[in-house]
């Protein structure tokens, strides 16, 4: 709670004191009629009772006037509620970067499913979907048109389903030589963010891949990770191959290194149901990261002083009515 025009208070108090003094002085010099033998009236018990009532109402009048003046003055000084908000939270961009090679489809479906749920709670955040295999395809760009997002995610979920025959969804992901060119895919996702240089936003890539490379990508995973790092894009990697050994373990280790290097995280996934938990972790990690640099927003809250002023006015009118019958 703060007063925007706080200097109005001393100024107003000075003016009120001056006005009170003027009123008091004019009351003193006002021509009250001189009378003699006022004890004819003042000696009466009923007069003393009426005088008591009169004085009480005068007190009410004074108190109401002070309340009215004070409350009106406070309202005029613009009491305001200061909120510190974190606008980055609403500035969050998330690109789902899904490896749609055959081994990953089940995990992708789980991730899309989770984001279909999450999108309902989004507010101001933007989300995009890119799928890749040997080449990357942007299914839909970063947008906060949640209706479109939901529609597209539903299409993706159906296409990624086990009994899907919608191969058109994967159109364009086989253009390159090889399969699961993860470095290329991640680089495509990272460069897919608009205004990377000029606009300060929180950018996140949710990368779902097993990092089992088949072919020669233009970007290696490390290069792509370095690109992400230099563009301040955090990469959260989700690997459906949990604790394994051999080639897969090495790949997983490399993926983890790449992801943590960008400031993101790495999650090994044992079954598809754990995806929602992981996404939750990603979301909360994001939230924790975004608490910096709160912006103060100021909103006027004149209701209380105005209600008090109204009470004061009502009291004044009542007291005036009682004092001058």
């Amino acid at each position: 709670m703060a007063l925007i025009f706080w200097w109005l208070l001393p100024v107003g108090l000075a003016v009120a004191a001056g006005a009170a003094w003027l009123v008091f002085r004019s009351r003193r010099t006002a021509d009250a009629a001189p009378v003699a033998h006022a004890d004819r009236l003042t000696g009466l018990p009923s007069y003393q009772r009426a005088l008591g009532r009169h004085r009480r109402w005068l007190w009410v009048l004074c108190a109401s006037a002070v309340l009215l003046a004070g409350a009106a003055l406070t309202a005029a000084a613009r009491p305001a509620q200061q909120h510190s908000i974190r606008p980055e939270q609403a500035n969050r961009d998330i690109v789902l970067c899904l490896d749609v090679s055959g081994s990953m489809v089940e995990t992708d479906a789980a991730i899309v499913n989770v984001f279909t749920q999450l999108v309902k709670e989004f507010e101001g955040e933007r989300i995009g979907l890119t799928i890749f295999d040997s080449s990357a395809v942007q299914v839909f760009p970063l947008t906060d048109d949640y209706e479109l997002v939901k529609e597209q995610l539903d299409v993706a979920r159906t296409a990624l389903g086990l009994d899907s025959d919608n191969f058109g969804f994967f159109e364009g992901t086989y253009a390159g030589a090889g399969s699961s060119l993860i470095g290329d895919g991640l680089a495509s996702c990272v460069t897919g963010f608009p205004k990377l240089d000029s606009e300060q936003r929180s950018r996140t890539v949710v990368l779902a891949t097993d990092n089992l490379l088949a072919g020669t990508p233009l970007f290696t995973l490390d290069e792509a990770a370095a690109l992400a790092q230099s563009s301040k894009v955090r990469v959260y990697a989700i690997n459906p191959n949990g604790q394994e050994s051999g080639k897969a373990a090495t790949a997983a280790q490399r993926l983890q290194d790449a992801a943590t290097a960008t400031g993101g995280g790495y999650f090994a996934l044992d079954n598809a149901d754990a995806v929602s938990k992981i996404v939750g972790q990603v979301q909360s990690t994001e939230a924790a990261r975004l608490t910096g640099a709160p912006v103060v927003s100021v909103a006027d809250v004149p209701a209380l002083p105005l209600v008090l002023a109204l009470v004061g006015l009502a009291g004044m009118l009542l007291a005036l009515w009682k004092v001058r019958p």
Partner: protein
Amino acid sequence: MPSLLTRVKSKMFVFAHRRARGMLDGEYASVFRGRSLDFDDLRAYIPGDEVRDIDWKASARVGAPLIKRYVAVRRQTVLLVADTGRNMAALARGGEVKKDIAVMALGVVGYLAVRHGDNVGLVHGDAGHTAARPAKGTEGHLEQLLQSVDAAATLEAGSSDLKTQLAHISRSYATRMLLFVVADELALDEETARLLRRLQAQHEILWVQIRDAELAGEHALALDSYDVADRQAIAAALGRDAEVARDYADAVAARSEATASFMAARGIVMAQIGHSSEVVGTLFSLLERHRRAR
């Protein structure tokens, strides 16, 4: 300074035209009991003359009532007694300043006395100070008396206490006089009663009460007011309270009744005046009642 006596005379002139000319003089002349035996002449009867002054034989001869006139043995003395404390600078019932009514009343009686050939003196003052002016029989002197009353009774004057003036008179004057007292609605206490009994034994007393401003009820002052005695403020709004107004009317009536019965019990004729337009008429009836009271 405009002559106060001229104002008094013009009031009396208007009154005299409405009634019969000379009535006031007749009423005044009857105030004094003392008469000499030196016959002067006869004149036509005018209302107010004592019936016992009618010369029946002469009246029978002429066919109209004639009055025997005697040469006064000595000049009578009228002592005007006025409160000139700050109570008299307060408002009267009719809205005027009380001292204006007081000056008018003193002037009427003083002028009647001067016209009758009597001397007029003055005792006035407040609680702390009493001034006495010697009795003389000229209009110029009367004018000075009225001026001194008018000048003394201001809001800056001392507080009113008519007992001080009454005590002064009881101490200072040995001869028999007519005391014409102009007071206001003061509450008569034991001390005043004692002084009045003392003065009544020696002098004739005529008492005029100037009515104070109404403080409550229908005819109360519209303005807020204050008591000149202690500067206590009185809100006009309080007087409009029905219960207060009723109690006030009762209290004022009781006080008025107490004063009237007190005066009546001591044979002092009293009249109440609320406005200067009532002065001459009220004084006429006061003198009339004084004559009948004997």
